[in-house]
């Protein structure tokens, strides 16, 4: 049986063979298997050097200083460390947090937990295209706001938020630190920690052809940037209360032996992403438009999210007259895509992101997210259009739509 066409690169990507090879070099006796914290011998030194090379590679890809990179197990841990870490450290300054309804669960759930513990959380509603107006952020800031957490690229609809403008709003406020979940950004659109004016930024390796199980939190050291003349220079380095203890690694923010092979993989994956030619993004964008034209020709197809402000790799569409679970069931043997439903049990729930955009439950459930990637070909796109077209047509016939 043929494998389904893989169009779920926004969920995860295959590890680049060059990355896998570099990781393998860090595992066995013949390679650099040492504990990077073991400064007492050459094995540790060699592993430590690889870790620092990877740190520099990640930093170079996202406009950060190497010293600002704190390794984590992934973007979820990075988000948790940023949100709980800031909330806890600055709890005497304030207990108000601003975020958006369309954030990833890895941001929304920590915020909800803080709410349970007594913090106040403002969740901004996007417009119907999925965009958060920076003015909304400015208006939401209160005297005791200690954190703003807004994602750069939305994982479901691919919409890019105006992070520099949001960063400026936070800077003018003075107290609010800006955390940006950029798990979906690297390799898809420009990311510049310094230019963004962010204090914290979460990164993931496996969205960019690196391994699962590793990510990073960028923690600003406060060496600020001549930005917009709003006083960045005076800003103190952001501080965090660590979530785990035992060894003091990663500036004390994240204790535990650094997994050399994992961070080496992430470092190389980010370097490869940084060096990818612009033509690749153009190729992906052209494929996405080919996909959209094909799906739009079915009729009753709605595009979710601002097409002009989204990364080229993501297309999210809803199909009128089609039940969501049946749509996914009808395509899944031939197509690997994500649905707009959160399958938390046998009963599916409509996507809260699409609901926040104003889609009704039925359209939110009948959506598909297509995630294009390096391996995606024109043939894959044409197959996807044919498979979805056949499914939509059949289900509409069954439903009498």
């Amino acid at each position: 049986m043929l494998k389904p066409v893989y169009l779920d690169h926004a969920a995860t990507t295959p590890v680049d063979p060059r990355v896998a090879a570099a990781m393998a070099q860090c595992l066995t006796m013949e390679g650099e298997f040492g504990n990077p914290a073991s400064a007492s011998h050459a094995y540790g030194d060699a592993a430590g050097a690889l870790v620092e090379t990877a740190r520099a590679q990640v930093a170079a890809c996202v406009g950060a200083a190497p010293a600002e990179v704190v390794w984590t197990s992934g973007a979820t841990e990075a988000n948790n460390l940023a949100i709980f870490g800031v909330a806890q450290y600055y709890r005497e300054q304030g207990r108000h947090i601003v975020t958006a309804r369309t954030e990833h669960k890895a941001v929304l759930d920590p915020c909800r937990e803080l709410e349970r513990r007594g913090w106040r959380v403002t969740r901004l509603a996007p417009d119907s295209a999925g965009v958060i107006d920076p003015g909304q952020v400015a208006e939401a800031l209160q005297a005791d706001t200690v954190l703003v957490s807004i994602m750069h690229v939305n994982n479901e609809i691919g919409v890019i938020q105006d992070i520099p403008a949001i960063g400026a709003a936070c800077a003018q406020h003075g107290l609010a630190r800006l955390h940006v979940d950029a798990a979906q950004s690297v390799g898809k659109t420009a990311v510049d920690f310094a230019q963004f004016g962010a204090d914290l930024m979460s990164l993931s390796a496996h969205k960019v052809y690196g391994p699962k199980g590793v990510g990073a939190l960028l923690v600003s050291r406060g060496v600020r940037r001549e930005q917009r003349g709003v006083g960045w220079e005076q800003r103190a380095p952001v501080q965090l209360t660590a979530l785990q203890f035992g060894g003091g690694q990663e500036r004390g923010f994240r204790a535990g032996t650094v997994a050399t092979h994992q961070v080496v993989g992430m470092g190389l994956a980010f370097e490869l992403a940084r060096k990818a030619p612009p033509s690749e993004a153009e190729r992906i964008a052209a494929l996405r438009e080919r996909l959209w034209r094909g799906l739009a020709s079915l009729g009753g197809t709605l595009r979710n999210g601002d097409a002009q402000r989204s990364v080229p790799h993501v297309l999210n569409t809803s199909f009128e007259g089609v039940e969501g679970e049946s749509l996914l069931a009808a395509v899944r043997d031939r197509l690997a895509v994500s649905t707009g439903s959160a399958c938390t049990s046998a009963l599916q729930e409509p996507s809260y992101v699409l609901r926040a955009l104003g889609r009704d439950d039925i359209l939110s459930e009948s959506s598909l997210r297509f995630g294009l990637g390096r391996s995606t070909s024109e043939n894959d796109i044409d197959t996807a259009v044919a498979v979805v077209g056949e499914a939509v047509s059949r289900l509409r016939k069954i439903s009498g739509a």
Partner: protein
Amino acid sequence: MKYSELTLHYFQTAPATGVLTGPDVYRGAAGNRAQGTWVQFDLRVSGNIIHAARFLAFACPHTIAATAWVAEHAGGPLSRGALPGGVQDLSERFAVPPEKRGRLLIIEDAWVAAATSALQR
């Protein structure tokens, strides 16, 4: 979501899809598209015998499969409007998860509406 082979078969083939027309056709529907599940049966009945049945469904694969099976096996005596097989049998036959069993009641309601219409002609 995992589906049984029988569920997938009836979902994918969906026999007896469509509508019937004519003076001897009786229609019943239940559910609501806006709430995610809607089912309609058309029954061709004469002399209290169902000669043909068709269905339409806006629903999940389990519900489509069960509705298709009911329509396919509908031929025969009208038997006071009872759903062929019954809800419990459909639930077991198509391995319907507990959370979804309420949707089988929508199938039953649609069937009863069509059958009642035929019985009251």
